């Protein structure tokens, strides 16, 4: 188990270094930091001074190590667009996105998992077929359509929920949360529901397929031949065999929402990372894009790492494949 964990962590660090290098190449080769940082009437001396200060006269590898070193000290460089430290820009937007991602994950688990199990256990029931029909819509409708539909119904027609913003935000010092106020919860429901539509549908279909397959297997038949109750067979013996792919997908989806909920954030004017990313692309703000790239890599790698460290707890065979 320790070997397994160590090898996973080493892999994660290596991948992060590679991503950082690519991001660094972006910063090093695209755009001109001097033009962005110097005033138009700067002298040649000021220019040379800045080159030396930024280390632009150093070889590529030295600069990369410097770049990594700075990041480890919390220095992520400056935005070309706003001249703010990139770290501040991301820290400001991060809570909104992370909270959105977790609430939508919560909806996915609470709605998707039971519905998926129901469809897997009773694939031919009327209700099961009805769920499958609805989930087809969930898979095929794009996010912005779902978002606009939800706004049209719940904000415009019924006037129940706000259509934009985060509501009242409570500042905890290190984190600005919208989850401690009623208006914050009201504001997060529609965007979170929008994001989870696809995932709920996806998890339902995945669990159903997995359960139907496991249900045919010889060990489930043997469990029946031993007189175990149907509840025990489905909810313990069968479910445990479907968990690996399910938590893998949930993890990837969580990363996806944190990194790429651009469209949904735009529809709901949600002040998160997605809108920051969009603005940075429009402004060719290379340092922000580069750090964002590394950040996204980090999120995916950490989530993936956690998921992989959970594997052996579910299926001990994972450890054997390792050795």
């Amino acid at each position, binding site marked *: 188990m320790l070997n397994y964990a160590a090898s996973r962590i080493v892999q994660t660090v290596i991948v992060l270094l590679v991503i950082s290098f690519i991001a660094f190449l972006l910063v090093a080769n695209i755009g001109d930091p001097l033009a962005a940082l110097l005033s138009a009437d700067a002298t040649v001396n000021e220019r040379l001074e800045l080159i030396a200060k930024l280390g632009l006269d150093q070889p590529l590898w030295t600069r990369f190590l410097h770049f990594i070193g700075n990041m480890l000290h919390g220095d992520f460089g400056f935005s070309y667009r706003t001249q703010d430290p990139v770290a501040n820009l991301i820290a400001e937007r991060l809570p909104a996105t992370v909270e959105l991602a977790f609430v939508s994950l919560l909806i996915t688990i609470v709605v998707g998992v039971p519905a998926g199990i129901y469809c897997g256990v009773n694939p031919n029931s009327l209700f099961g077929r009805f769920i499958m029909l609805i989930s087809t819509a969930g898979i095929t409708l794009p996010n912005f359509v779902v978002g606009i539909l939800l706004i049209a119904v719940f904000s415009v027609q019924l006037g129940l929920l706000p259509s934009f913003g985060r509501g009242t935000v409570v500042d905890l010092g290190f984190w600005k949360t919208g989850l401690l106020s009623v208006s914050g919860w009201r504001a997060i429901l529609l965007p979170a529901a929008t994001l989870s539509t696809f995932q709920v549908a996806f998890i339902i279909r995945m669990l159903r397929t997995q359960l139907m397959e496991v249900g045919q297997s010889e060990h489930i038949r043997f469990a*029946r031949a*031993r007189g175990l109750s149907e509840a025990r067979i489905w909810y313990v013996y069968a479910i445990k*065999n479907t968990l690996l792919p399910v938590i893998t997908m949930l993890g990837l989806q969580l990363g996806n929402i944190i990194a790429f909920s651009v469209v949904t954030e735009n529809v709901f004017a949600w002040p998160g990372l997605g809108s920051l990313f969009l603005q940075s692309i429009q402004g060719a703000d290379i340092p922000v894009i580069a750090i964002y790239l590394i950040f996204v890599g980090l999120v995916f790698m950490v989530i993936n790492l956690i998921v992989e460290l959970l594997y052996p707890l579910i299926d001990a*065979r994972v450890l054997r494949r390792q050795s």
Partner: protein
Amino acid sequence: MINAPAPLLDVRDLTVTINRDGKLVTALDKVSFFVNPGEVLGIVGESGAGKSITGAAIIDLLVPPLKRTGGTITLAGTRLDQLSPKAMRSVRGGRIGFVFQDPMTSLNPVITIGQQLCDTIQAHLKLGGNQTKKRALDWLDRVGLPNPDVQFKRYPHQLSGGMRQRVVIALALCADPALVIADEPTTALDVSVQAHILELLRDLHRESNVSMMLITHDLGVIAKMADRVAVLYAGRVAEISPVGELFNAPKHPYTRGLIRATPMPSATGEMRLDQIPGAMPGLGAVPPGCAFNPRCFRAEGDCRATIPPLYHEESSAFSCFHPLERVTA
């Protein structure tokens, strides 16, 4: 059969059909046999003869589109074919244990052996947690696994094929069933392991006096284990005889063909091997009359016209119009 004890399991006219695109095809055609208390009944036949279907039909575990459509199954006075699903569940594992064929696929890969045993015990016996565990450990010991405490916590993939089959046997027997149906219990194992598993089954059978239905295609296994043998052919019973009579004086030409097709040294020590011409008809392709008639050297007009009934003699029964004489073998 006059002074024989009441059979533990009595199967009469068991019929199983398979629905193929709306057409009903008979897979098991009025199969009748019984198993006495403490007896080992061998069920033998080629692949596709309906052996496994017979076993699965008894505990209502047929895989759709196979479906039981007729006949009665009586276990110690209880009609199994009329039980509710809930009552059937307590028969499975509780009254009838089932040993599956392939230990590589029949154990749940993500649940420990101990847990699988305890769940099975608790499904049938009202025992506390400690007693359940004690019984599980006891069974691991009885089926010959070293260090039961260690094995209890292990997962199936950590055991060899032979050890897994021992676990499967423990799972089938741990709730003290009256009858064990073993469906090709050694077919998936190495030859050296097969002998050990057969020995284990025989020992457990002697200790507990449990009745057994041993389904196999291997006449060697039958000779070692069975008291009586039912020979199935194309979903019908060809012959049922005590094991000695079956080998020494088979009545049905198919039985003799089956015995002669098994490599066995003759009295002079040379190996003799005769194969039966042709192949067993598949599902839905059974010829009219006796299913064996196209391959039978004794077949006559009546064999092709009507299905021979099961003729009962003192200890045996056969379904043939022209049975072999005692001396012909």
